[in-house]
């Protein structure tokens, strides 16, 4: 069992969904994949297909139009799965907090495991967030084993 758990920690494939952000965080996520930051060091691949993804990176506030898309994508991801809210908007709505069409943070729609503040977030923060999320997954897997 140890081997599989280790694999889960070593190979988080991410799915990125833009929920209505300003693009700042999106391009930083992409930037995190590029040579300077190279998320692939951690086995991270931007897979783009919810059915094969482990980590859902959400940017931007949930709004009245796209919350169903977010929900759908989350439901199409098999367990174990993690959700990381990337950016201030995804955490709370941020600068869009009083926009009429915005529901607020994405935790209104799907359960969020890690919140990353920043507008826009820096690639280093994304790396930190993934490490945090994986720690949480490790904790989860351990507690399951105890049961």
């Amino acid at each position, binding site marked *: 069992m140890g081997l599989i758990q280790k694999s889960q920690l070593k190979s988080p494939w991410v799915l990125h969904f833009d929920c209505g952000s300003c693009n700042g965080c999106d391009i930083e996520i992409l930037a995190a994949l590029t040579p300077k930051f190279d998320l692939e060091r951690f086995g991270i691949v931007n897979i783009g*297909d919810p*059915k094969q993804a482990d980590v859902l990176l959400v940017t931007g506030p949930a709004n009245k139009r796209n919350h*169903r*898309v977010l929900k*759908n*994508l989350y*439901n*199409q991801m098999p367990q174990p799965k993690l959700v990381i809210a990337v950016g201030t908007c995804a955490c709370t709505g941020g600068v869009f907090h009083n926009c009429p069409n915005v529901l607020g943070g994405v935790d209104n729609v799907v359960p969020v495991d890690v919140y990353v503040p920043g507008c826009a977030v820096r690639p280093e923060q994304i790396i930190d967030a993934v490490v945090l999320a994986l720690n949480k997954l490790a904790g989860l897997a351990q507690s399951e084993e105890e049961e």
Partner: protein
Amino acid sequence: MAIYGQTLVALTVGLPVVSGLASLVLPGKTIRSVLVSVTALVLIGSSVSLLGISEFTYNPGHIYETAVLVLDFALLFYFLYVGMKSKSLPVIGLSLLQLVPVAYFEFVLHGVKVENILLVDRLSVFLVLIVNVVGSVVVVYALSYMEEHEHHLQLKESRQGRFFFFMLLLLGAMNGMVYSNSLYWLYFFWEITSLCCYELIRHDGTAEANTNAVTALWMALIGGVAFIGTMFVGYYTVGSIALTKIMTAQLTPILLVGFAFLALAAFSKSAQFPFHSWLLGAMVAPTPVSALLHSSTMVNAGIYLILRIAPALKGTYLSLVIAAVGAVTFTLTAILAIRQKVSKRVLAFSTIGNLGLIIMCAGINTSLSYTAAVILLFFHSISKGLLFMGAGVVENRINSRNIEDWEGLIGKLPFTTTVMLVGMATMFLPPFGMLLGKWVAVDAIISTPLAFALPIIILICIGSAATTFFWGKWLGYLTVTPMTAQKQVKETLPTPYRFAMMGLLAVSIVFSAGAPYIINNFVNPLIGEAYKLSVTSTLMEVNTGIGSFLVGPFWIATVAMVLLGVMITKKKGGVIVPAYLGGENVPEKPLMFFTTADGEAEASVSTVMLQSEIDEASLNKFAVIIGVLLIIVMFLVEVI
């Protein structure tokens, strides 16, 4: 022993004719069913019994010879009548081209006398087996099919008597043909198959059916004319029209022209380029007709003729041209089949292509290639019969011949579709027999001189990839099922359907798995008559000396894999989730997605046809031109 053999010969030729006549005369569905079923059983039984008999000759007697003569003239006059009725110049012309020379040949030259009129050897027996087993199954299948068909057409008066008469007559004529040693008798039975073919194609009586039937007829009549050419050549060079005499005679250019005539006849019957259009037109007939024409009878007549004369042509240029015609046909039809929409047209192109492959193998004319040809012939008949029967059932169920409507058929007609899927797999995938044949064919090609083999190698490479393509995409399209966990649909089928399809399926699988046995016991003895043996097969393996096909281990591995796969996937199980649709799935509706203004749209898929890439019209034209050119070359090479 001889008596026993002669009885079986008489049975296989006479019984279908008699029971066919009976079905024409006797009314009633039950009587007909019983009659046909019994005939089928007897035919299967007697053809299997024939396997135990070694070579013998047989002269039926004067009365039969006279009868053949009279009937032949009657037949030719009928063709003339048909030509006049349908105002078809080719039919009239070709009928006259036969009538006059035959009359001259018979009444002036008295050339039809032959010592051994009938000759039963391994090749005949093998062909009889194919004709009767597959043919009988198709005829039984037709019992159910024609009921549904006539119900569908809402006919007031049943025309099934006529239908089964010609079906059975076709079987009888085929049997008679493969026994014939006299070219005249061969020619006579040949013309009867043409007649049956004509009558069966126009069975439904629509305008399209009539036109296509006439086309089929005049193309078949070209074969008849070619036969007469051979008869004259035989008479003037060898002094006899017995096949055995002609084949053993010293090859002279004139004699080769005679063989070229026979090859031409074979091409016209086997629908090789440029004669492929009649077989495509024959699709208008009820499906059992197609099943019969494509699998075991009609087209096999041409193959039989080529296989029969091939040993005499060893090492001639004529043989190479025959191979070239086959190879070109194989490749071009495989490409054309990709873009066909009508299910039966795909099957038809596949038939033409596979016949081309067999003719190519016969033309290459080595021991190995001849083996390949026989294996291919055997398995092709079974698989194609199966596929046509499946296609017929589907057609009657969903009222469409368009394969675009076949999407996800496995959910609607699980039994028939499974039969079809396996049937398709037997056509092009290992470890089934057709692929074994193709594999032997490739081995055969590389053991021939390169200068000649290279173009054929390239044609085969392209052709077999295209074959995989068009079968595979069709096979895949049948499995396109929506994502919901749906209830298993029960499919009810009449017994003849079930019997026919299950029977042929079982035959196909068992013989594929037992291919080494088949090769040892049926194919090799047949090869041994004309060639040195080159394929050795043990219980598990077929070895050509160039490669080895491990039939046994392959089957064991495949079966083990399926079992293991079922076990593991059962254990793992899984939750069925809707398809990926960009996250806009409509809840509870697996194939719908939200689109503009929150409207719902259905995600759909089309078939793969490469319609904009393959230009059928110009390819067809090209095929005809190259076919005509090759035939001209075929007659010219003798001069060299």
